[in-house]
């Protein structure tokens, strides 16, 4: 499969990937390397993993990172309560106590012990602590996990690993070196239009152009939270749900639907009706 074919199959699942992203995915699949995706919030970094899983019809295992995430939440933990109960009730032997029956598999262990290779999405890796990054390095390079009581568990199949980050903290060089890298930016007008047509197909052509043009213009404004693609799609769904056919017609409805795009009070303040009129004037 070339990267263009990959782009095509992704498009069939409803994900419009640009050339560099599809090439990155193609290489990640071909070389079996993890892929690190960086970019601003709301450009579809997480979505790509879902699209990939859907395209290959395989399972998606997601690990959402947060500050304080540790091995017992990400890799494995023993089911202590169950172990204790079985000691009291059945006088279980030690070998049996430390068997897979009493092992709670967390996402990472889960991902390497599947019969069919899943997509492993490690979301917002930059939120996790540096110690966790070190655990991850071992798993990403060898695809094996050592459990002292049980021995080393080797991956049955290698999961397709996708990591996303949006710059909360610097990632270590070691992690970056293990991964392929792609930077996803906000899409240009044509790609965004293609995404909109794909995801909300019943939007009329003229309205779709107006929506994309307006969102692209709003992104150039100085905002706290720049609206991403998800916001744009929400807005389009809201507008078509309300039966709006032309953005320039009904200003009151338009102002009301802006809640889909602007998520802070300061941003609402930064986009008063006059500014919106100016933007719409250019778009229409």
């Amino acid at each position, binding site marked *: 499969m*070339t*990267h263009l074919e990959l782009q095509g199959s992704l498009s069939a699942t409803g994900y419009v990937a640009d*050339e*560099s992203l599809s*090439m*990155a995915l*193609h*290489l990640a699949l*071909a*070389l079996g390397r993890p892929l690190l995706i*960086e970019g601003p919030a709301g450009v579809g970094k997480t979505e790509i993993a879902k699209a990939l899983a859907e395209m290959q019809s395989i399972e998606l295992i997601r690990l959402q990172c947060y500050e*304080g995430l540790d091995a017992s939440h990400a890799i494995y933990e*023993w089911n*202590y309560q169950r*172990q*204790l109960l079985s*000691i*009291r009730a059945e006088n279980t032997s*030690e070998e049996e*106590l430390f068997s897979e029956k009493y092992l709670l598999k967390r996402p990472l262990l889960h991902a390497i012990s599947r019969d069919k290779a899943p997509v492993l999405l490690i979301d917002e890796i930059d939120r996790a602590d540096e110690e966790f990054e070190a655990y991850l390095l071992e798993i990403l390079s060898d695809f094996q996990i050592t459990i002292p009581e049980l021995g080393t568990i080797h991956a049955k199949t290698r999961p397709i690993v996708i990591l996303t980050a949006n*710059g*909360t*903290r*610097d990632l270590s*060089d070691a992690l*970056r*070196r293990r991964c*392929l*890298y*792609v*930077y996803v930016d906000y899409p240009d007008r044509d790609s965004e239009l293609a995404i909109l047509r794909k995801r909300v197909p019943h939007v009329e052509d003229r309205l779709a152009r107006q929506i994309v043009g307006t969102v692209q213009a709003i992104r150039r404004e100085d905002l*706290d939270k720049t609206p991403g693609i998800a916001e744009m799609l929400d807005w389009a769904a809201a507008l078509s749900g309300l039966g709006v056919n032309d953005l320039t017609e009904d200003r009151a409805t338009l102002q009301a639907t802006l809640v889909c795009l602007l998520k802070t009070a300061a941003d609402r303040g930064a986009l008063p009706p006059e500014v919106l009129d100016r933007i719409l004037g250019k778009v229409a």
Partner: protein
Amino acid sequence: MVVTHFPSRAAGVADRMSGFIAHLRLNGLKLGPGETGEALTALTQVSATDVQEVRLALKTLLVPDADTWSTFDALFDAYWFNAGKTRSGTASTHVRTQSARPTLWQPHLNGAGADTEGQNETTPSHGDGDAEGVDGRLIATRSANLRKRDLRELMDEETLREAEAAARRLAQAIRDRRSRRRKRSQRGALLDLRRIQRTSLARGGELLDLHYRKRPDRSMRIVAIADVSGSMTVYSRVFLAFIKGLIDTDTSADAYLFHTRLMRITPALRDHDTLRAAGRLSLMAEGFGGGTDIGGCLANFVKNHAAKAVNNRTVVLVLSDGYCTGTPEALADSLSKIRRKARRVVWLNPLLGWKDYAPVNAGITAALPHIDAHLPANTLDALAALEPQFAKL
């Protein structure tokens, strides 16, 4: 300008690829021989004669971060099409080590290594009145003779050392915080029942070994943003020594300088080679002693650095007198953004300790609603007295 020509003996793809990797390495990417092999493997996965495909494949494979992502295409063209690309110089810092104004930092960064010429420049001449507010009197110092002396006379080695020491104490005071969550530890207030039961299995179910949980230390980070513009010239060296103290004590601390532009100086201050550190700082301080654009610089900080440098466990220190050529609105806007992200924003103002000083200039009035504390920083004592203030924050 490093323009690459293929060596005439370069035989095949492998040779040229290793040349390309060397070319990238020369331009600052950290790549090893492993990457050369990976790059060649990647070529087998795409149509190796299509320039665009090869470009994208190598970009994905070799680029480590967002900065390089945007410059890779130029580097690619430079090598494969001999388009030429100026090498972004990391080596050139050495050349300028002795130039311009390295003297400002030399006494404490260079130690005994400072040359005599540097020393002469370092000692400021008296009475040239190149900075605002120098003639005022200092109050609130314990020592009577300090009160009468011009601050510029205080810039000796000992003062700088004291400033560093004050910063160390301050950093320690800020760092010592506790988390709310509990984690396992050797000693602690709470028993870790889960772990006790787990280890009791080895003792036949008897609870012999005790384990504890406690709240681990959650240190606060310090981000210092220092004004080194003209009006702050007399304080700059003490402040820099102060910042160096902070950086030395706390490995997570971050420091920035601004005058008309904002620069991150943490890597330079952490440089083990003091000569190189002085050189790097001097390069950054170009335009030192000029005007101030606090609002613009803080906006730059918010846009480019705040996401990484500031979180809800960060204390942001702004060291400035608030005299600003930019608009006060921009300053207020940026400060409010910083305050939303940071735990505390503290403004250290050297003018605040002066007799009859009232914070009435446009910059500082705009800033006041957006800061948690506005503290004096005109004397060493004032710097030292910050410690209890910070313990309370």
